[in-house]
């Protein structure tokens, strides 16, 4: 069989030829992916197997390479937000806000406190959706479909809040330079309140279903463990690093969007195994909920939702129709003819999976000279072959889903 899968000069083919087990059995090759049902995305791993055990793995990525960075060099700043949506599509608002904050850093724009708090709320909601997907899918992969069906209902509720804010569900394209495109409606706040009331008991139940579940523990404890040192060497950030016991969180290290105003703890794990990653994500959901509550409680009075930057912020539509000045601004912004300084900016936020960084180089023209995305998934996925070495095939699937590798972010 292996001759069919691999060319004879491949190193695995050579290993198979050379090595024969004592009992006469031989090693085999398994091609996991790129469309394997259990991989939730397009990853290919060629596995060298001894029975059920993985000896070595060779990943191939790039199956949905969409050339984000090349497109970004050809688009005005406004048109790059939709690209960021499609990068980590499980938590689009974080990406959107990160992009706007990069531009605000470039242009030295101060965002009103209220808009910053609104951003915090929406980013934490996005983190919750991200962790809901990751953890419930991890449940599915260990054989517990119920949790997935149960908590996905609440992800729909978050999508309804997004819809109230920006009109879209998944690829939100949310916000504007300096704040939001419109103030949040009363309905959005009402839905948020309902969510904050209904979700915690459900999440508690979800946790109870898994955290002391014998089968789940057997499948995840000591599976895919990674030490703090090697996690850092591999460039891990986010929940996967914190599960290994390192409390690095961009929200705390370099607070953006007023994260310094809120009190929360950074949950950390101990052994960096699949179970710890699961628990860290669970705990982060609770912290996110607490941040949202604090932001709602501390929300400044008034209805500021954007900074007063007419050069960059689209004027209201009725003014565009009736006011010459507004029309000119509208035209200039839409055509991307806005003044941009020459600079190099790096801005990082805590994305769903870790440090999401935007490295932007401008040359004063309407498009970025170069825009590089520091995509956490891309960086930590390279540790995957190392993590599954010696594990069973079924563990490899569980490890992959606990890492929460998002194909769109991986391949850019």
């Amino acid at each position, binding site marked *: 069989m292996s001759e069919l899968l691999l060319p004879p000069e491949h190193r695995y083919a050579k290993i198979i030829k050379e090595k024969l087990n004592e009992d006469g059995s031989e090693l085999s090759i398994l091609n996991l992916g790129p469309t394997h049902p259990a991989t939730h995305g397009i990853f290919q791993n060629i596995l060298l197997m001894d029975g059920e055990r993985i000896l070595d793995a060779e990943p191939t*990525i*790039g199956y949905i*390479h969409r*050339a984000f*960075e*090349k*497109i970004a*060099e*050809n688009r005005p700043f406004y048109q790059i937000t939709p690209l960021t949506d499609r990068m980590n599509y499980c938590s689009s608002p974080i990406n959107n806000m990160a992009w706007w904050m990069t531009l605000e*850093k470039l242009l030295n724009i101060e965002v009103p406190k209220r808009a910053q708090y609104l951003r915090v709320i929406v980013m934490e909601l996005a983190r919750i959706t991200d962790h809901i997907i990751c953890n419930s899918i991890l449940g599915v992969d260990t054989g517990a479909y119920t949790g997935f069906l149960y908590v996905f209902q609440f992800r729909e509720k978050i999508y309804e809040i997004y819809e109230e804010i920006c009109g879209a569900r998944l690829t939100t394209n949310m916000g504007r330079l300096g704040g939001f495109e419109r103030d949040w409606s009363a309905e959005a706040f009402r839905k948020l309140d309902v969510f904050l009331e209904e979700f915690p008991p459900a999440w508690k139940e979800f946790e109870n279903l898994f955290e002391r579940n014998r089968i789940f523990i057997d499948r995840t404890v000591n599976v895919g463990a990674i030490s703090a040192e*090697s996690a*850092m*060497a*591999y*460039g891990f950030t986010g929940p996967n690093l914190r599960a290994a016991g390192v409390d*690095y969180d961009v929200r705390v*290290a*370099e607070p953006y969007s007023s994260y310094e105003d809120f009190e929360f703890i950074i949950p950390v794990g101990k052994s960096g195994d699949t179970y710890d990653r699961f628990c860290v994500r669970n705990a982060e959901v609770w912290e996110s909920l607490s941040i949202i509550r604090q932001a709602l409680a501390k929300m400044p009075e008034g209805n500021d939702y954007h900074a007063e930057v007419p050069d960059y912020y689209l004027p209201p539509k009725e003014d565009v129709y009736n006011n010459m000045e507004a029309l000119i601004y509208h035209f200039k912004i839409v055509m991307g003819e806005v003044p941009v300084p020459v*600079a*190099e*900016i*790096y801005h*990082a936020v805590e994305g769903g999976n870790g*440090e999401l*960084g935007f*490295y932007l*180089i401008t040359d004063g023209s309407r498009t970025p*000279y*170069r825009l*590089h995305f*520091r995509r956490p998934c*891309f*960086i930590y*996925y*390279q*540790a995957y072959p190392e993590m599954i070495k010696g594990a069973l095939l079924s563990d490899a699937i569980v490890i992959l889903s606990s890492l929460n590798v998002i194909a769109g972010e991986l*391949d*850019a």
Partner: protein
Amino acid sequence: MALENTQIQDKLTETFGESVMHFRQERDIFTFEVSSDTITPVILFLKNEETLNFHFLTDLCGIHYPDSDVNEQFAVVYHLHNWVENKRIRIKSFIHGENPEIKSVSNIFLTANWMERETYDFFGINFIGHPQLKRILNMDEMISFPMRKEFPMEDSGRTDKDDRFFGRTPSNC
């Protein structure tokens, strides 16, 4: 005690002299340039020196400057981060346009492995000493390097787009 820019600058000039240059604060990140032949010792020094302790490679990427002097047509940018002092630095290293090559840092930071492969894939920068320098995102059969400025974004072979409807022909009719 926070790690000051001058401290980093002094230490580096003391050890490497002229090959580390153009120290400047660019917005919130301390930036400097390193000549391409000393990049590995500089990064190793930054990582291992006790007071500096830049132990985390945040990002590595390439930039193409086709209009610059032929000696400086490509740049490789390293973002390092010291979590203890919470200090970021950016290192730029310019390399030759015709035969872009630089030493690999993948033996210093494991994470640089794929980042360098990506940079090779996009720009064709040859990282000397990389364990497995081959394309990562694009197809192996591809011969050009797509992130170079002269490479067109759109697929040249496509047939479904009529240039006339996109204002790309002189007559537009």
